């Protein structure tokens, strides 16, 4: 599985959280766990507008990137988890708003 191969790989191009479209109207399939540095470079060259979707580390600051599963346990991601739980409360209103 792609996630396994990407575990603890030091990456230069860190794709910001979420599933991204790289081309307008395409399927949002790109996320940090399924994109290697080589692929990221290729996409950025072909589609320069996506550069802002990346956090680009210089060569001496390559970071170890946790996978989605590992990220749940990290403090940074736990904030997002908390946010989602906060967002889930208003979801109760969905049946009436739709």
């Amino acid at each position, binding site marked *: 599985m792609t996630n396994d191969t990407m575990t603890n790989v030091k990456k230069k191009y860190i794709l910001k959280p*979420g599933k*991204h*479209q790289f081309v*307008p*109207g395409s399927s*949002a399939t790109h996320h940090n766990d399924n994109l290697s540095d080589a692929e990221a470079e290729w996409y950025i060259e072909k589609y320069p*507008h996506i550069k802002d979707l990346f956090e680009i580390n210089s060569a001496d600051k390559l970071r170890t990137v946790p996978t989605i599963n590992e990220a749940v346990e990290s403090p940074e991601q736990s904030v997002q988890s908390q946010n989602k739980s906060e967002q889930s409360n208003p979801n*109760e209103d*969905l049946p009436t*708003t739709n």
Partner: protein
Amino acid sequence: MSIYNKINAGFALGTDEPVTAGIEDLIYVFNQDDFTLTFDTTNPLIVTGLTAVNAAKVYKFEGTNNSFNTTSKLAKTSVGPRYTEEIDFNVAGFSIDVKTQLQAMGYGRVCAISVNNYNSSDTAIELFGAVNGLILTDAERSAADETMDGGYKLKLTNPDKLREPYPPRAVSIAPTSGTATFASTIAALEALVVTS
């Protein structure tokens, strides 16, 4: 694979922030091929980012008197639920530039973002036409019509034979640091709006 056909929550009626009707009299409209979307990792109903292609901009159409409206309606098909979308709005103006924009919306596909009056919800700001875009299907101006007073009455809908596979998406864009809120989402949208 996610369990897509099992509900996992109910709804309790309460007096805390009751739902209210209507949308604000403005819609943000952009050309579908001018922006890429970022979705929440686990929930495709949440759009967490808009990225402009070639410095493209969002255009804001403003109205008044609660005259804008959005409609989303489920259409049952042999392959599952699909959703038809409609946005009713108007332009209280009459010029070549207005006509030019209306003509363009009749040919090209656009996406539209509305802001519900009920903004206590996490889906207060909604994106229409995320997959197939919208086109202008009604653009009516009756010069002597007192209701519109000579302005254009407009409707954006799904293109012929196309519907959306999801209900309107919630737009929820976080600030540079912190949690996405109504205010941070509006600020992000306004930053993309063209300024004359």
